[in-house]
Each structure stands twice: as structure tokens, then as C-alpha cells.
């Protein structure tokens, strides 16, 4: 399940054109909404691309239809982490989130994602 408006994607490619790391992705962002729409979210979760995503939100900013591919990557990462029995998941309280609560400052998305990637490695 996803809150991303995947049905709005018209496969224009602007997200992949904007994405700073799409060149290194096995599955660039313009495929993401389509994959999930076709019931192949699993294959997206297995793609290396979701771990290369910087969570920079370029794709979301440029998409002419208001799709937010970045959030599909986030969700796929969090599902994968949970499956791999990591106790702290993206949705749960991570160490960073605890820090954030204590310091009263929001954590930049990129930092959270970087932490996720470290955790997985």
C-alpha cells in the first residue's frame, strides 16, 4: 500500500532526467510508479536503486503530475528493512529520531536515509 499517487504517472521521464543519481540506478525513478501500479512493488524493493536514492526530492519537485517517486523508494527501503528484521525501521524510532526529539530539531531527510543505508550495511 502506498499514499503516493502512482496512478497519476504518465511516464514522461522528468523525474529520471532530474535525478542526480539516476545514471547509476538499475531501475531509474520513472519506472517506479509504473512498477507498483503493475503489482511489481516487490521487484522495486529488490532493486539497487532504492539504496542509491539520495532523498533529495528532485524527482518530486520536477514531476508534472504531482507523483513523488522519492516516497516509493523510502517505503521500499522501510519494508525491506523490516523484512530483514531490523528492529528499528524507517517508521519506528531510530536512534536519530530520538536525538532529534531530544535536540528539538528536525533531521534532514538525507541524514535519515544515510543512516538507513549504514544500518543495512
Amino acid at each position: 500500500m502506498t499514499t503516493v499517487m502512482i496512478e497519476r504517472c504518465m511516464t514522461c521521464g522528468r523525474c529520471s532526467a532530474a535525478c542526480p543519481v539516476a545514471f547509476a540506478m538499475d531501475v531509474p525513478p520513472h519506472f517506479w510508479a509504473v512498477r507498483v501500479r503493475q503489482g511489481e512493488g516487490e521487484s522495486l524493493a529488490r532493486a539497487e536503486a532504492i539504496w542509491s536514492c539520495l532523498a533529495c526530492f528532485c524527482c518530486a519537485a520536477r514531476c508534472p503530475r504531482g507523483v513523488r517517486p522519492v516516497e516509493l523508494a523510502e517505503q521500499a527501503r522501510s519494508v525491506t528493512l523490516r523484512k530483514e528484521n531490523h528492529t528499528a525501521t524507517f517508521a519506528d524510532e531510530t536512534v536519530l529520531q530520538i536525538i532529534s526529539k531530544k535536540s528539538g530539531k528536525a533531521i534532514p531527510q538525507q541524514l535519515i536515509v544515510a543512516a538507513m543505508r549504514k544500518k543495512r550495511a
Partner: protein
Amino acid sequence: MTRVIIKRIGVFVCHCGSNIKATVDTAAVVDAIQSDASVVHAAEYPYFCAEGGQQSIINAVHAHALDAVVVCACSPRMHEATFRKAATRAGLNPYFVEIANIREQNSWVHKNKEAATQKAVQLARAAIAKVKRAVPLFPGESAVTKRALVIGGGIAGIQSALDIAEAGFEVVLVERTPSIGGKMAQLDKTFPTLDCAACILTPKMVEAATHEHIVLHTYTEVEKVAGYVGNFSVTLRKRARNVDMQKCTGCGDCYAACPVKRIPNEFECGLSNRAAIYVPFAQAVPNVPVIDRERCAYFRSGKCGRCAEVCQPGAVNFTQEDEILTIECGIIVVATGYQLLSPDMFGELSYHDSADVITSLELERFMNAAGPTGGKLLRPSDKQVPRRVTFVQCVGSRDTTRGKPYCSKICCMYTAKHAIAIKEKYPDSDVEIFYIDVRTPGKNFDEFYRRAVEAYGVRYIKGQIGKVVTTGDKLHLQAVDMLEGRRYNTTTDLLVLATAIEPARGAKTLAQMLNTATDTNGFFSEAHPKLRPVESATAGVFLSGACHGPKDIPETVAQASAAAAKAIGVLVKPKLVTNPCIAQVNETQCNGCTICNAVCPYLALSRDGERGCTTVNAALCQGCGGCAAACPSGAVDLLGFSHAQIHAEVDALCLQPTTHANAAPIKHTNNAHGGTTDD
């Protein structure tokens, strides 16, 4: 008012094929409504609107001596006129017909057959209750001013004006810029035949300007619109040109002499400059300059007057002022066209950062022999012929976040045209087009696009550009090739943006003046998307060209001629039949408070000082009913929708139906006509 006793009503329940019958038990409706004593005949039929159906109604009127008819069928917008005509043929007053809408308001929106059947019975009862209180109404007549006003002098306005003028009617053609011609005058060649735009447009411009029935007002805008179909009165502001149209010979000495020269020329999309006194382009019609007062040194500082000094016939006139004109006309054609969406919102495409990123319209000027480079395609930055030209389609179109949600319709075709034109002129150049979809429906259109690919070797890449960076004399493009499913980084010399089309500036204000609607995107709305595509919802206002939505020239011209044909259809009428369903003031009840006067959007109401009450100008009233709702003493009634009728309908719908559901409704005091029968 004649007092009519309606005692014998016929009810006709239509199946509309399966449209109604599939959801409504029509036989049960026929049964149920016969409990009303006034219903002396009820019948069902597959299509009452068909010839046979109408005839069966006429026969029933005769056979059962009916004095009113209720048709339970589709929306009155669809067939009210049909059934009123049938009633007239049967010898009834056409306003003794009521429609119960059991299709749009019932069968099409419900699934439960039992409930829908019950609702159909209720709606039928309401219509029966209403028709019982009907009074005969007789349409009036109004004169038609045999003159047309066309607003906008692009190809659409020119074509409509010529067609109406050719039919023998006077036309006033209003254009707000100094010359007619519109966007087409800016184009180089036109798809799909690649004929030169000026060659086919200029003769039409001249014909419009010299036609004996056409009066041209350029540099003129509409300020106010009053009146109604057949009798509009429009106020125009003809801006001061500061050049006498009669004396000017069009020699051009003035703009050569003008010392203020560095003003971006709007017609050339700012790619070249003009003087403060100027004609927008060489073939301008009329070929009479205007002074741009904001830039003119004389108007700014009182010093200069060079143009006046060199003008041999003494045409320059610094004291000229705006003129206000009033035009009486029978119809109005709107032909205000479009403009291009500014690429401002798309910073990643570097339109403002790089001179070598241009719009498609700017490219038209570069390719045009009369343009700033004499028809040579030279990069703005270094005036070299680009070796590679890249296009990106759908900039701001089909974009619900930063642009317009619709497809601009013409850009796929003109981009293919641009690619072919560049390949024709510079066969060694490399042309690449980024697209989302290529949309080329239209006669010979797809063939044209395929020719670009197959005969000219234009490379179409399914994908978009995410970022443009300039280094040295190259534009670096970060893009994607979606069919390959990979990033495609490349360089180019010139990048052309096919930007979206939007309504012309001021379209909304004009629509408000005309009392007509625009759609969510600001384009003028047609009265019916299929059956009345060139009429606006306001009687006597017609739509021509791209003011109604993105259109190419063939479609624009077709619509322009269609609008003209519709307009002529009004202008030829000796008299117009007026709608009798207008407001009526019960003078004994009206206390002259004038609350209704303020409500009326058509200015049809005024207070008669002597009698101390409001009176209705029957010619102006459009029967909107605002006054009837506003009047605190219930003194205003809308004929055909009287308070008595509407209350009876509401009672029929809301009070528990009994055997004689509508026999004893609540008494209402404000029954203006005394036309009721059974209460």
C-alpha cells in the same frame, strides 16, 4: 391575464430506449400517476421525441381533449422545445407543457430500480402540480441591429469578419494591438503544407481592411458591454496613436528619425528593437505607426518631436487623445486567441540564464525571412548557425503542478515543422526532439511527423530534460532516454522550448463584460461541447478560434466560419422571438424598495417614481429569477416559474403523497396570476 382552468392533463412517460426503462418501472409510473383526478390520460413509449412519439402526444391531445401535457423524459434542455412545438401543433399553448426530468436527475444517477421508480412518480407529480397552475404565455419580439462586432483581429477574427461582411452585414473589427494579424503573422511556414504564413494571411488582412462592410478599429479595446442578443451596445476605447490615420502615407520617415531606438519589439518577441514611434512589422495593417507614449522622449520630457519634424504630410499629432466609441450591434464574435505560457516556472531549463534557450515562437521569428536575422537561424549568443538543435515538447502542458493540465494540441505538429524546416535549410544539422507522446491526429498530420523522422532523419527521443547547464558555447543537457531506460547526457547548440498555450491576457475580464463563462483554464466556454461548439452560453455571443482552446490554423478557420454562419443566422432575422418567461411585478404588492433592482445582472429593473414601484424592461430581462427570489414582499414572479407553481412543485415533492397528492396544497398568498384552478 387569461384565466385558464387546467383539468385534463395527459402524462407521457418515455423509456428513452433503455436509458430510463432499465432503471425505472415506467408502467408502474403510468399506473401511479393516474390516481390524480386531473390526469385523464397516461401512456408510455420508447421514444416520445421521435416523430411517432410526438404524433402520439398530438393524437392523445385530440382524443382526450387534453388541456396540458406532462412529459416524463430527459432534461428540458434536451427536448423541452421539441415537446412545446408538438403541443403547439396540437393546438395548445406551448407553455402548457411541463417536463419531469427522470433521466439526468433519476435513471442516470440511480441504481435501485424501486427507489428510482418512486422518485420518477414524485417528479411526475411535481410536474403535474406545476402545470396545473400554468398560464398561457406568448413570446414577444425584438428588433435586430444588423451589425456584428468581432473582438480580436487574428486569423479567427479576420475570417469571421470577412464571412459576415460577405453576407452583406456591417462588421466592426476590434484589435487591441496596432495591427491585425495575430500570432499567424509571426509564423514562418505553416504545417502541414508548409506554405508561408504571410503569403496566405496578408491578402486576408488587406481584404478585411478594405472591405466595404468592415470598419477596422486597431489599438482599441472593449470597455463595456450592455444589452442583449440583437441589441448590444458596446463601448470601445480607441487609444491615441498620435498619428493621423488619414494624413499618414506610411513612408516610415518618422521611425527612422526617432532617437529612442532600443525598445524590444513585441512582434519580434524582443529579438530586435524598435523605435518609440513604430509599426509592429512591415506588412502591418493598417500601415500607420503608433507612438509608444511611455517610451517617447516627447511624452516623457517634452523635448524631441523629431518624428513630427520629418513627417512630410504632418501626420504626427502629439495632442491626440483616446476616443470613446459606442457600437450598436446585434451579435458579438469573440476571437481573442491565445498567448504562450512564460517558461519562468521551469528554471531547470535555463531560459533566463542562457540566450541559446529560446521558445518556439522565437524560433519562428529566426526562421522568418522578415525576422531579425533575415531568415538565418543564428544562435543568439554568438550569431553562429547551430550544428545541433534540440527541442523539448510539453513545456508547461499536461502539467498539473507548475503548468497547465491540458495538452496544448499544436506543439507536436509545429515542433515537427520546425525540425523539417531546419533540416531543409541546414541539411548538415542534427535535430533532436524530446517528447512524452507524439500527438498528431489530423488530416495528413501523422504523415507529416513520420516524414520528419523518415525523410529528414530527425531523432525523436522519448524522454525529458531535467537540467540545462551552459559551459562555453555549449548547452549541457541532463536528460533521460526512456525507451533505453537510461540517463542520456548530451550537449547542444540551441534548445527550443515548445511552451504551453494559455488564454490571451484579459480574456476573463472580457468574459465578465460579456456575461459569458470561461472554463477552469480560462478559455471561453461553448454552450454545448458537442452540439453547440461555436456558441457561448450567452445568446448572441459566438466563439471563434483559439480563445476557446488551443487550435491550429485549419481548425481556427473552420470554427471562425462556423461562428460567422451562426452569427449570420441571427442577423438575417427580421425580428427575434423573445422568451416570455420573464419577471413580472405585481404592482399592488411592490412597495418600491428596489432591492430587486440591485440584484438584476441585466439592469432590467427600475423604479417608476410616479407609481412608486418597480417596472421590468421586458427586452432586457433574461428570466434569471434573481429578483423573484430577492423580493421581500413576494411581489415579483417569474412567468412560467411563478411562486404558485414552484410552491406546488415543492409540496408535491415534500408532502406525503396521498391518493390526491396535490389536491390540497398549502395556500400561498403571493400568487401573482390568479391562474390556479384547483385550490
